[in-house]
């Protein structure tokens, strides 16, 4: 049976590489042997009929107690013909070694380091296989299924004394640190160069990012980002929560766009459950996701301008952001972490005032956008500090796995909303703006234009907002309405089970892609049939985009590094997870 043309092409070219192949939720999954991996990846990237030019994600699932224990997944996306492919490589626990993919896709660098850090799988040929998220001196691999969640017990009367004692004697491990090792630039000290350290506490690194710079005079030779200072173990935490609860931890990934994360996670789980989401919920999701995009871009705009010395823009941008937060607060009771999009739809129906408030914002915002543009677009200082800075070519960007506005600024028209529409985005008319030169100034213009397009989408969604239910009526997933619960015993039982135990999700893996303000955000959820996920993988766009920092900074000046970081708009919550 012909599953997909790509599978037959792979089988034809690498006859003894394929173990098995199947379609999962419309995407081909090909299980291959590991020794063929680099060749296979190269073939998939370069074959003119396939052109999988973006290695979207590399991740690992621990199937303990099944054998082979690990499966490493290579998620490939073609930006030109809009197809996806999952290469899965089984890895045994006794021999956790894989050939590296960094020779083919440079983006694999950090992704493989993360797998090494979290699962203990090594990649031969990787030039810099160090820990990335966890502290360097750790010897454990936290995302393995047999590694405990960690943390502390809740204090009750019977155990509070022991817990207090533990807390009082808590000390963090001490170790000797060599400055050069610490900066990660060992062996490259050159006459006349200097190493300077930026962060993790720095006013313009957007949180706790740390960058080690090697400079010669004012010129940057190397810029090595060090991350993990905000590693929260969100992926591990999600494995210990029931599906509906795990929505709340996704909020805290990209805390400027929590609703995009909710949406990505909900879409992945809904695929596994094969739920149909009512049209009304889909429209509301789109409205909320676009409002979030504007709110997030406003913080980017404000901080970017602030870091380059323009203080008024941040005051203006936060003024408008408050309007959006007010809309969220009125809707959900919370300003930022709304968890409003959940599995099966949205949490509650819209409030009567929602439409009026959003329309008010739509009417107000275009003139405010013009105000920002007045302050910046033709501003000489702004142009000097952004135009021609942080250039990257389209090929380099794709090779590094960069997505979102940064990729589009190089001219590649890849927007998940257009290429792989979700939640009804195919119903709306909007443009995908692209840049030409791939510099920071282009990224600025592009994000401003994206906000305009978001307004267009919100307007259409609000006009066409259908009536009807706001969440699925599948009672295995969603809570029964109050009236039924009070009248029918079975509904009460459903309610009790859903709240206390959660709902089981059929075994399998599903992945979703959404366009978050920072780029293509992917969620991979693996279920073992229980009410808690076996694995929740977050493919964070900031994490992957940040790898491009060195390419962008090389040859530039130290002062440009700040402008480039701001133009990348990384969010450490999402980078470190």
């Amino acid at each position, binding site marked *: 049976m012909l599953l997909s043309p790509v599978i037959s092409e792979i089988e034809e070219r690498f006859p003894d590489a394929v173990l098995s192949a199947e379609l999962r939720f419309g995407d081909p999954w090909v299980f291959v042997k590991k020794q063929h991996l680099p060749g296979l990846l190269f073939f998939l990237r370069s074959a003119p009929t396939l052109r999988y030019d973006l290695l979207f994600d590399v991740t690992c699932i621990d199937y303990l107690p099944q054998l082979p224990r690990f499966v490493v997944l290579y998620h490939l996306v073609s930006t030109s013909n809009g197809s996806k492919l999952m290469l899965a490589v089984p890895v045994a626990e006794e021999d956790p070694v894989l050939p590296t993919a960094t020779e083919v896709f440079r983006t694999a660098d950090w992704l493989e380091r993360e797998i090494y850090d979290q699962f203990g799988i090594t990649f031969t040929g990787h030039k810099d296989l160090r820990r990335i998220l*966890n*502290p360097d001196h750790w010897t454990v691999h*936290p995302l393995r299924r047999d*590694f*405990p*969640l*960690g*943390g*502390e017990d809740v204090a009750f009367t019977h155990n509070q004394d022991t817990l207090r004692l533990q*807390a009082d004697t*808590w000390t*963090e491990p001490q170790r000797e640190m060599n400055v050069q090792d610490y900066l990660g630039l060992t062996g490259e000290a050159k006459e006349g160069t200097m190493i300077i350290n930026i962060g*993790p*506490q*720095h*006013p313009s690194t957007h*949180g*706790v990012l740390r960058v080690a710079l090697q400079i010669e005079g004012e010129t940057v030779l190397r810029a090595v980002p060090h991350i*993990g*200072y*905000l*590693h*929260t*173990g*969100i992926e*591990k*935490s999600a494995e*210990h929560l029931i599906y509906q609860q795990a929505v*709340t*931890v996704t909020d*805290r990934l990209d*805390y*400027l766009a929590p609703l995009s994360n909710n949406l990505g996670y909900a879409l992945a789980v809904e695929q596994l459950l094969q739920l149909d989401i009512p049209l009304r919920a889909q429209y509301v999701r789109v409205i909320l996701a676009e409002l979030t995009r504007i709110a997030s871009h406003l*913080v980017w705009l404000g901080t970017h301008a602030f870091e380059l010395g323009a203080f008024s823009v*941040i*005051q203006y941008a*936060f*003024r408008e952001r*408050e309007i959006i937060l007010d809309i969220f607060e009125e809707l959900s009771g919370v*300003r*930022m*972490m709304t968890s409003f999009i959940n599995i099966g739809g949205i949490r509650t129906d819209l409030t009567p005032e929602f439409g009026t408030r959003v329309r008010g914002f739509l009417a107000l915002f275009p003139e405010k956008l013009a105000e920002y543009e007045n302050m910046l677009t033709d501003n000489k200082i702004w142009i000097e500090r952004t135009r021609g800075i942080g250039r990257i070519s389209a090929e380099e960007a794709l090779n590094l796995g960069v997505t979102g506005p940064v990729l589009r600024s190089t001219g590649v028209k890849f927007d998940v909303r257009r290429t792989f529409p979700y939640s009804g985005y195919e119903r709306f008319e909007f443009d995908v703006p692209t840049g030409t030169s791939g510099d920071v100034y282009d990224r600025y213009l592009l994000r401003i234009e994206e906000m305009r397009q978001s307004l267009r989408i919100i307007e259409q969604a609000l006009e066409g907002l259908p009536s009807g239910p706001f969440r699925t009526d599948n009672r295995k997933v969603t809570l029964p309405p109050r009236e039924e619960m009070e009248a029918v015993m079975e509904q009460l039982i459903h309610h009790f089970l859903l709240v206390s135990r959660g709902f089981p999700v059929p075994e399998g893996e599903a992945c979703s892609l959404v366009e978050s303000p920072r780029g293509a955000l992917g969620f991979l959820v693996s279920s073992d049939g229980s009410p808690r996920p076996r694995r929740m993988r977050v493919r964070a766009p900031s994490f992957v985009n940040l790898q491009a920092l060195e390419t962008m900074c090389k040859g530039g000046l130290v002062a440009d590094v700040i402008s480039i970081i701001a133009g990348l708009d990384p969010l*450490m*919550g999402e980078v*470190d997870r």
Partner: protein
Amino acid sequence: MFAQGSSEHDALRHHVMFGKLDEAVGWARKLSIWPFTFGLACCSIEMMSIVMPRYDLARFGGEVFRSSPRQADLMIVAGRLCQKMVPVIKRLHDQMPEPKWVISMGACASSGGVFNNYAVVQGVDRVIPVDVYVPGCPPSPDALFHGILKLQEKIAKSPMRG
């Protein structure tokens, strides 16, 4: 010293105030807090909001956010403290000159929040002393205001030399 009804006596009555030096210094200190720009996670966005026009911390004296610990006297720990960050936060706290205060902003900084796991320190008070805890996830800017006002009360009452 001066005769009652004389102009000097009058001037003294209107322009000289007696009080404890501790109180005078406390009053001055509480209205000129210099917070440290130290955002860790989600809460830092709300921390930024308090200096923005809508909330405007400047009304209570305290809008001068400094990026160097050596110029700051209030550390607002805004967000979850992770294991890898522990040595950094300790060093930053040590670098702040006395007298200094710490606000633990949000559930994660106060107790680890929803992240009771291997990566997150269960409360920043394990590492540095905390003066005021502000609950919330994240606390709204109003809640942080309340925390800062409470801290001001504490500062006003504390002796000049700690």
